[in-house]
């Protein structure tokens, strides 16, 4: 089963190699292949990108990113500020297009289907690819319980047993014990770390298969960060996680795979993607090595 998937991916990558002949894309395709190696539990084809570029107005901010996110794995995107990793993660659930001048090229495949294909209902994509933002953003007009279930209301999903769902989402987000007696309070009453876990619980309620996390801990203290990392480890058992982080220790702690992004003043590029242990112990590219050993960034 796993091998089969691997072959399918290889097929696609062969095509990619022919269509994108630049060295950068070759290296990323090569690393993408490494990422589909067996050894992880595959729960589905997961998420793949093919030659993704992004622009804001005329500014080319992201160049030719081809990367696979195997189902059930955690992939960390690292790199200095301005290297396009946040832009990249936002192309994955089509949040990129909210910036008025934003444009993109390439394909983002979810279970083999291009999420940018004409006629796609973008709200359905975002139900399957959830997102947690840098700054905790619970809805202040709603209670803790309502916040968790807000996705159902927003996407007009009917669920019969919401109490059970509420408890399971909060439990998976590692927040249940802290809030079970105060579900009727407003979300704003929680601490920053709790709010972020509330936001994670909220994104779980619509049962996404992929969860994107855009620097989820950058506004949090070490204790809360630790709790979130525990939560990530727990969630990775049942879903694909892509996390953008500025914190290399965090990338090393939570992720199975790491992709290093870098911009040399031009558009951001993916320098290297490999299993996390490899990125941190024996990176292929000198620039990756310099970054992960703290020589710049």
């Amino acid at each position, binding site marked *: 089963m796993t091998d089969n998937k691997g072959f399918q991916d290889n097929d696609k990558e062969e095509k990619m190699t022919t269509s994108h002949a630049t060295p950068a894309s070759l290296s990323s395709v090569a690393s993408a292949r490494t990422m589909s190696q067996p050894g992880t539990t595959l729960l589905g084809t997961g998420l793949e990108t093919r030659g993704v570029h992004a622009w804001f107005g005329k500014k080319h901010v992201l160049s030719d990113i081809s990367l696979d996110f195997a189902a059930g794995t955690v992939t960390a995107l690292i790199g200095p500020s301005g290297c396009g990793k946040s832009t990249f993660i936002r192309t994955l659930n089509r949040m990129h297009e909210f910036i008025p001048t934003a444009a993109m090229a390439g394909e983002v495949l979810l279970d083999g289907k291009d999420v940018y294909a004409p006629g796609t209902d973008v709200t359905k994509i975002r139900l399957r690819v959830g997102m947690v933002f840098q700054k905790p*953003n619970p*809805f*202040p007009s709603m209670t803790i319980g309502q916040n968790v279930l*807000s996705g159902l209301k927003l996407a007009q999903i009917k669920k019969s047993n919401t109490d059970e769902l509420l408890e399971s989402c909060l439990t998976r987000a590692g927040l249940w014990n802290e809030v079970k007696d105060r579900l009727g309070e407003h979300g704003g009453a929680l601490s920053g770390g709790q709010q972020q876990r509330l*936001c994670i619980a909220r994104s779980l309620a619509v049962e996404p298969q992929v969860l994107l996390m855009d620097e989820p801990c950058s506004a949090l203290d070490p204790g809360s960060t630790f709790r979130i990392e525990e939560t990530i480890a727990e969630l990775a058992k049942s879903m694909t996680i892509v996390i953008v982080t500025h914190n290399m220790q965090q990338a090393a702690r939570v992720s199975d795979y790491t992709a290093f992004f870098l911009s040399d003043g031009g558009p951001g590029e993916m320098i290297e993607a490999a299993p996390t242990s490899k990125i941190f112990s024996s990176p292929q590219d000198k620039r990756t090595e310099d970054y992960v050993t703290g020589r710049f960034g």
Partner: protein
Amino acid sequence: MSVELSERPAPPAPREITTQPRRSDQIFRIVVTIGGMASLVILGLIALFLSIKGLHILTEEKLGFITGSAWEVITDDTGSIAESKFGIGAMLVGTFLSAMIAILVGVPISVLSALYLTFYANGKVKKFLISVIDLMAAFPSLLFGFWGFFVFMSSAEYWAKLINKYLGFIPFFDVPTPIFERSPFIAGLVLAIMIIPIVTSISREIFDQTPLDRIQAAYALGATRLAMIKAVVIPFGRGGIIGGAMLGLGRAMGETVAVYTVLNVVYQINWQILFGAGGNVASLILLKFGEAGPAEVDALMAAGLVLFILTLLVNAVADLLINRFGGKGR
């Protein structure tokens, strides 16, 4: 342990913290204070003037000034007043009815247009529409009145007849005699159009300030635009919408010329909105001011005083509503 506690020296009294502002800052402070107080002083002076002129009419007529509806001045042969009766009850009812219709019709249109401008209209259309709406705010009210009288009235009359025909069993929509011209209904509709610009621009400004992270949170959960607006924008903007509606209400209640052209001033309390009788306080003042003798002018000032107090009350209620319901979504 307790001994130690009692021996611990008492903490010092808190120091007074002061700063010596620079001369330039002091002067600017005075200038700004004058600016800030100016509106309060002007408003106070107007209230004072209205009170001096009108209070004696209020004390003479007592509650009858508000509940009564007769407005009569009978002069004898020498031109001095023999008998007078002042009551603005009918005008207050007319003010209330036309302003309410204006709010009920104008606010939903304004909120929809603000939502369109903020979340749907793109670049050029948006810019153009915003300038049109701003222009509408600056448009002289007399022209609204003319348009209401010459153009709008005939179609509004037709709608009034339709409403009366099918909903006439409701007392509000009944008419004693089939006169549909210049009714509170038509005045209310003209006022609705007049309050659209202010309510729209206030709502639009508040919608514009909706925190982006909340909007994105909703979209990231698979929300449609409508669901996002319902869950995020409306709770956030509720206070602003109420505030805008109250400003619109203030304008609708105080509007003079436009109402004067499209609403019959009749000294009789009329709750039937489709019936061509009413008048509002401001248009009564406009109607009577030109030919009024001194005593009647005082009575008109008293009417003005009542309108003034009414406006203050509306604003106080608005603040209350905003504090009560507006803060929740913030």
